[in-house]
């Protein structure tokens, strides 16, 4: 019986797609566990160094490091951390939307922007925008990012900052809230400015005692700070990518399941109709005889 041949082939093809998405879901789930561990492992360090830098912003150092001084903002640097691969839901799209709104804000203040992209997706998106200058790019970092992967990008930006080509440095990346939620965030890295005073901090006018000396120490610390924040953004984005992919692939598998169910129903109905028709034809034929 050649009933519903097209429907049957369609069901088979959807089943195959479902197999693929299910496999990707499982791969992403196991990778997510690993990348999440990695993210959580390096979080305390990033948090503490951020805290120290905050303290430092309250100090009154005898040596004025350029990373601690505010300048009039004419041009800013932006490091965009995205994933290399797609099929991870709205992860990159949300990040880019957030970035674009930030870019529009800068444009309205006639601030120019230099961009460094991490990950193929960001380069593909922002590399095509004519009014933006992409000064650095790195991709194909893979599932186990190392600090050395992003050192090049960081140095480009820091050199530009030291030479006064850019007056502020920002990082955009996804923050891992939980498996279902990832939030794009824009962080200002440089210059470091004082925020509200925490307890446990000396009040009034004070400065650190530095060893070996202020210049070397601050240079070392601030470099570490920038590296650690960008690295943290990278591992965090990595965990976000796997989580988002897992969720996207799960919903794709579920949708395929639904589609198969519906098609199966249509197919069964068509088959039933054909059988009924055949029977009534035979009965009608027998009655005629």
């Amino acid at each position: 019986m050649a009933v519903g041949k097209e429907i049957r082939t369609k069901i088979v093809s959807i089943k195959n797609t479902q197999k693929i998405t299910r496999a990707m879901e499982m791969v992403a789930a196991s990778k997510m566990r690993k990348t999440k561990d990695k993210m959580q492992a390096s979080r305390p360090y990033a948090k503490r160094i951020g805290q120290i830098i905050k303290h430092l912003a309250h100090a009154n150092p005898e040596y004025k490091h350029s990373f601690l001084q505010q300048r009039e903002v004419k041009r800013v640097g932006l490091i965009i951390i995205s994933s290399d691969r797609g099929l991870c839901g709205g992860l990159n799209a949300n990040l880019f939307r957030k970035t674009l709104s930030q870019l529009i804000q800068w444009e309205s203040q006639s601030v120019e922007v230099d961009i460094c992209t991490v990950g193929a997706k960001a380069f593909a998106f922002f590399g095509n925008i004519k009014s933006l200058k992409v000064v650095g790019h790195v991709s194909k970092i893979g599932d186990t990012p190392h600090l050395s992967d992003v050192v090049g990008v960081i140095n480009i930006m820091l050199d530009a900052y030291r030479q006064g080509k850019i007056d502020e440095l920002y990082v955009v990346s996804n923050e891992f809230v939980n498996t279902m939620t990832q939030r794009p965030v824009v962080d200002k890295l440089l210059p470091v400015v004082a925020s509200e005073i925490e307890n446990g901090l000396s009040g009034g006018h004070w400065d650190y005692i530095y060893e070996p000396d202020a210049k070397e120490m601050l240079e070392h610390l601030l470099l570490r700070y920038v590296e650690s924040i960008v690295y943290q953004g990278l591992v965090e984005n990595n965990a976000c990518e796997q989580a988002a992919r897992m969720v996207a692939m799960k919903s794709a598998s579920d949708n395929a399941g639904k589609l198969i169910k519906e098609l199966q129903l249509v197919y069964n109905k068509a088959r039933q109709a054909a059988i009924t028709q055949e029977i009534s034809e035979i009965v009608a034929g027998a009655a005629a005889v």
Partner: protein
Amino acid sequence: MTMTVHVDIVSAEQEVFSGLAEMVFAPAELGEVGIAPRHAPFLSKLKPGEVRVKVSDKESFPFFISGGILEVQPHLVTILADTAIRAKDIDEAAALEAKARAEESLADKSGAIDYEAAHAQLIQAVMQLRTLERLRKRGD
């Protein structure tokens, strides 16, 4: 009651120690320092060596760090270590082997080695062994 200071030790891989202590000893760039509560703000690089957190007269926690940064606020001490391990967990055999290997490559005068890397390796291994030795002497 004795005065205490909050101490946080983190390495690039994990949080190693967090809690109150009476005194902290650390290998600062210009020599070992002991930090008591209400120390003046202090910022220093750390050399490879032993960090010791004295929680009470009876109890103290020794760690080995491979360098890092020390920040002191009157009521807060933060140590950012590149890597940190509990002194007890130091692998003596591995440290000895690393030391031997580093010495060997330093003795190799053909110039084919990265002198600085080998030297750093040697210091690491020696400091690990020294930390272990001190730990034994104290009879922990």
